[in-house]
Structure formats: structure tokens, C-alpha cells
């Protein structure tokens, strides 16, 4: 599990890659917390194009990011989910809280 970033005009993009399960989630959540503290973004995009596996632990990570952004009046959304992670997003209904960006 890796988290890479790009920051531009108040928008932080988190590029998640590898497998996001319970084992990986604690460190991923800590890394993301530190990145949010460092960049203080207004908006946050979670890019999942490099994510090969995610379970409900990943949903909990998304909820956590969403809470942090909401606290400062920011927005968070998901970009480029596919395959297995996309099915987990659909089954969980997390897209009602963290929308999937259309047409990406």
C-alpha cells in the first residue's frame, strides 16, 4: 500500500496504490492524516487507479478523510476506481458520502 500526492491550487490528490485492507489501513490513515495536516487542502481527490484491492477497511479510511475535510468546509471525492475496489464502493454505498467523480 502506497500513497503518492500531487498538490495544486488548494487541491490535494492522493494516489492510492497496492492493496488497502485492515493490515494496511492503519498506516495509510496515519500517512493521510499527516498529509492533510501538511497541505491543509481545501479539496481532496482520492485517485484509485493504482488500487488493486480494497475492502471495508478502505471505506473506513474514506469516511475518515471525508470527516476531516468536512470539518474545514472542504470537499472530497473519488477518482478512477475500477475492478474490485469499484464493486466495494458500489456495495457499501460510500459514494453517497464521498462521490465518485463522473467521466474520469
Amino acid at each position: 500500500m502506497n500513497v503518492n500526492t500531487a498538490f495544486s491550487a488548494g487541491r490535494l490528490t492522493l494516489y492510492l496504490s497496492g492493496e488497502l485492507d485492515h493490515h494496511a489501513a492503519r498506516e495509510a490513515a496515519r500517512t493521510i492524516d499527516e498529509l492533510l495536516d501538511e497541505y491543509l487542502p481545501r479539496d481532496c481527490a482520492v485517485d484509485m487507479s493504482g488500487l488493486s484491492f480494497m475492502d471495508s477497511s478502505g471505506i473506513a479510511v474514506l469516511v475518515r478523510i471525508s470527516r476531516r475535510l468536512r470539518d474545514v468546509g472542504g470537499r472530497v471525492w473519488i477518482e478512477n476506481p475500477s475492478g474490485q475496489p469499484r464493486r466495494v464502493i458500489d456495495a457499501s454505498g460510500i459514494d453517497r458520502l464521498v462521490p465518485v467523480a463522473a467521466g474520469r
Partner: protein
Amino acid sequence: MNAINYIKLEFPSLSCNEAFARTAAAAFAAHLDPTLEELGDVKTAVSEAVTNCIVHAYPDAVGRIGLRLRILHDGQLEIAVRDWGCGIEDVEQAMKPLYTTGGDERGGMGFTIMESFMDRLRVRSRPGKGTTVVMLRTIRSRRKRA
């Protein structure tokens, strides 16, 4: 019910075994010639069930987790995940979406995802004795579909 093929695994409730368990399950399920999507569903369900054992059955200790997969008739895959941990007082409540005792690191979506990815899900639990989750999923072989 007679199984055509089966595996039984036992491992300690260490979180590094989550990836091992779902990968082993997928390797066994490959006998049924599943699609990539079906394989992903099997991996997801196993990951959720094993994570539940690690987080909830043995919250303060390392215990045993049993994983058994059986191929029944007509491409039916049965997945059983068992622990000998603390058990669940109220199974019905535990299975409700968003219900969790795991704090904000957990989302309470584990059973919801298992239910939506499997054809059938049965949970048997006795407080102080442990929990068994049995899931069924029919794999429609790609060869037969073609």
C-alpha cells in the same frame, strides 16, 4: 454434503494473514474457472470475514482462525471462516450496516459487503466460544458460459 475438493487452513490472527487468506482462497477458487470479478468477490468476502476475527474475536490477543473452502456440486463454492474467540452477543445487530464496536477505524460495513458479494451468508456464534461464518457462492465457469 459431499465436497468435490476442499482445503483447510489454520493461522494465527495476525493482520498480515489477511492478504494470505484471501490469496489462498482465490488460488483454490481458480479450480472453478471463475471470472476476474468472481475472484475479486471471493477475495473480498474472505478478507472481511478474517478481518472480523482479528479485530472482534480476539481484540486483545492472538488466537486461531480456521479457513475451509469446499467445492460442492454445480460450481458451488463454500467458504467457512471460524474462530474460537469472544463470540457475538447479538448476531442480528452485528450484521446491520454501519453497526460496529471497532471504533472509527472500522466502518461497520463488513457483513454488508459479505452479503452483497455472496449468494448466502450464515453466522453462528456463541458468546465465549467463538463464531463461524459460512458463505456460499456459485461460480459460473467461463468455459460453460462460452
